[in-house]
């Protein structure tokens, strides 16, 4: 009989997504990586005469963002024995965290000019008369640069609490690149679920929320204050949607070169069988983890200006975040191996074949024609 002292298997300890395994790796790469991207666009540009008013309005945006992940980090302690070509391990202190960290700076600029056609007396002797002339009522040119995630943090946390999903966490972290004002992580972290889930760990960090930022940014709020007397309203904001369902499953256990497969989970233990002999004094325990990820990230920018029920202009843009960041999604199941010296609970390295640089995975977009009537 071979005794296996308690051994810790992990990507890092404590679990850290940025030091974890990439959810969408190509063959030969597995590191989470950091990606950055920038983008800009116009939202609307209009010049309209509305009765006695003349409105000139344009708006645009620039976005700079960086992402760490999407990735998962995992940790578990294994202890047990191998006998008669059967291994039996007790799994404890398991933890899985999956998600990604994102920093997003946004620069929004607006030009709103409102003129009014007001009557003026024109002195011209016998031809003196009243004439309508344009007078400038307001010139509003706010420009802001904000840490977008920081700005909407309160609203997002409120959303997560309201939905009862206390497991889905959004926290500020150290910035992942100097150019970002802040970095926020969206991830789901479950502890001690491995055995109760029959050898699977499942997390599903999700949120999807449209947010109006105008009243939360003083420069933009000043625009609305100026427009209030005219029963005019300006809205601008973001729609953010993220979902990263991840299932991680233990598929094989190796003691040195002896491989145990057909893993079964029962009564808090995992057991498997081998076609080879149980090693006498194995030095290393290796665990193969298969993960099946999903990932969807949408970022929309919108702006709306309405004057009573008379006039409305509305614009929105959805940004293909994944392709902008060089992240491509290929659905499937990916294997990874984690190992440690038997008896050690010290995690000094991921042991997961790290390479430099973010990995790109192929993505396929559906052509719109396929969706039309």
């Amino acid at each position: 009989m071979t005794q296996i002292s308690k051994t810790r298997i992990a990507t890092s300890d404590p679990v850290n997504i940025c030091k974890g395994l990439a959810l969408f790796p190509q063959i030969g790469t597995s590191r989470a990586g950091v990606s950055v991207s920038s983008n800009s666009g116009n939202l609307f540009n209009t010049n309209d005469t509305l009765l006695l008013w003349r409105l000139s309005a344009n708006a645009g945006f620039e976005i700079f963002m960086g992402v760490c992940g999407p990735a998962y980090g995992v940790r578990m302690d294994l202890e047990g024995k191998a006998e008669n070509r059967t291994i039996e391990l007790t799994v404890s202190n398991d933890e899985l965290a999956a998600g990604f960290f994102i920093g997003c700076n946004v620069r929004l600029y607006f030009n709103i000019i409102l003129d009014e056609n007001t009557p003026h007396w024109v002195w011209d002797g016998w031809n003196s008369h009243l004439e309508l002339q344009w007078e400038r009522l307001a010139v509003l040119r706010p420009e802001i640069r904000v840490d977008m995630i920081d700005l909407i943090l309160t609203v997002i946390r409120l959303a997560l609490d309201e939905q009862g999903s206390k497991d889905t966490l959004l926290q500020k972290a150290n910035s992942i690149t100097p150019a970002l004002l802040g970095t926020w992580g969206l991830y789901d972290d479950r502890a001690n679920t491995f055995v109760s889930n029959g050898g699977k760990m499942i997390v599903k960090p999700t949120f999807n929320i449209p947010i109006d930022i105008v009243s939360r940014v003083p420069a933009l709020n000043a625009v609305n204050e100026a427009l209030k007397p005219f029963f005019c309203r300006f809205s601008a904001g973001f729609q953010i949607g993220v979902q990263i369902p991840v299932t991680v499953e233990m598929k094989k256990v190796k003691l040195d070169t002896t491989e145990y497969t057909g893993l079964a989970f029962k009564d808090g233990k995992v057991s498997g069988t081998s076609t080879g002999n149980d090693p006498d004094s194995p030095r290393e325990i290796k665990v193969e983890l298969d993960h099946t990820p999903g990932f969807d990230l949408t970022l929309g920018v919108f702006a709306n200006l309405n004057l009573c029920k008379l006039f409305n202009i509305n614009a929105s843009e959805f940004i293909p975040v994944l392709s902008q960041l060089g992240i491509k999604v290929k659905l499937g199941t990916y294997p990874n191996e984690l190992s440690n010296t038997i008896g050690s609970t010290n995690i000094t390295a991921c042991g997961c074949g790290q390479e430099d640089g973010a990995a790109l995975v192929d993505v396929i977009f559906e052509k719109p024609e396929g969706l039309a009537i």
Partner: protein
Amino acid sequence: MATRRDFIKGLGGALGAVVLTSSCGSGGGTAGSPPVPIPNGYRFFRIISSGDSLPGGNTLAAIPGVAMLNDRSEVYFYGSDQTEANGFYELLMDFSGSRPTLLQQRRVVREGDRLRDSKTVSQIQMADVNNRGSFAAILHTDDNLSGLYLEREKQGFEPIAGYLTKLPDGKGRFGAIFGDVDIHTNDDILMVAHFAPHDSVQGQQGLFHLPGGEVSQKGRIVASTTDLIPEAGGFLTGMGLVDLHDDGNFVLQAYGTSSENIFRKQLEKGGALNGRAGSMLINGSVKDPFSKVLGSASSSLKVRKTAAARTGFSVGELKYGPRIGGKNNAAFITHVNETHLVLYYNSRQVVSTGARSPLGEVITSFSAPVVGSDGLLYYQVVTDKGLELIVYNGKDSKTILSKDDTVDGSVLRSFFFGLMTEQVDSSGRVVLTGDFEDGRSSLIVGIPI
């Protein structure tokens, strides 16, 4: 030489102002039943002016142009007081005498008001009334969130839908942004709002029908962004102003992008994401999701030939709020370009910029129209010489009020009409706001004679 019209104008101070309607030639005409006759004249009265007292003791400082009325003789207006707080006020009028009499006035909602849900109003974003006297409003509150509120029978505002309220079908939640709202008979509400469906990570904008003014299983999403544009290739990307009428018929100002533009953007990597959606008019019924048709569309959208060939279909941008009246007759204005506007009603062109008004002046701009319950169409034009308020019956157009007319003894210098959908009641009374020679702004009611 003084005309009969000048004589009547001179008597205006004593009688309110009796304005004889000035007729113009045919505006198109409609086949079928004879057109509703346009009243021979209107009497106009100033019923409240800047400087007057408001309920609660404040003084009315300005009336920017928003006014509504219903069949209960309730007149509503949006104004600011001397503290620069804006609010809606209601005047209960008696129209039975020789001039309108104020019976009662109250404050409906004002910035700074505390609501039933303990929130404080910071801005009134949108509002509408119906013939029950119910008042629906989109209110922005001190927690930096917006929501739909409804006041039934003057009992105070109850919150109906707000941030994270579950959708009528329970499959998602409302977001933090609410758009236009319209309320009709039985307190049925049509509302534009952002929402987050459970099964999608992309938030959407939707047109919600809330029967009885409540979020319940009877409510539904009538249209949403990512829907296909009816009768065209492409997807809806946004929604603007909406009007709801009898039998659940509605008109919606919407925005969309053609399929080609969507595919082109997906292929681009990096670079600016320019791509302005085109606007359109969607006409439909809340009772039938397949009833939606296009009334107009931007030239950037590829419209089916059957729709483009339809009588009254127009190509151009829809920047003004569309209106709908009885018999599902839509009234809307198309911007062919930035200066060329065309007004349509009941599938016919009524007037365009560059044409002559009933008073013979060249029209340079006009307001969104208002449809009366008898089918008469009311709209304001700006001409190279002034302003006119016009009534159209499908055949004739007549000016019922113009700049420099005298109302209650003072000369009218400018006025605003058409900023809201409910500005004409079933008796043909009209409400608008105006600026006078005496320096005061007033709420004006016109009564047909």
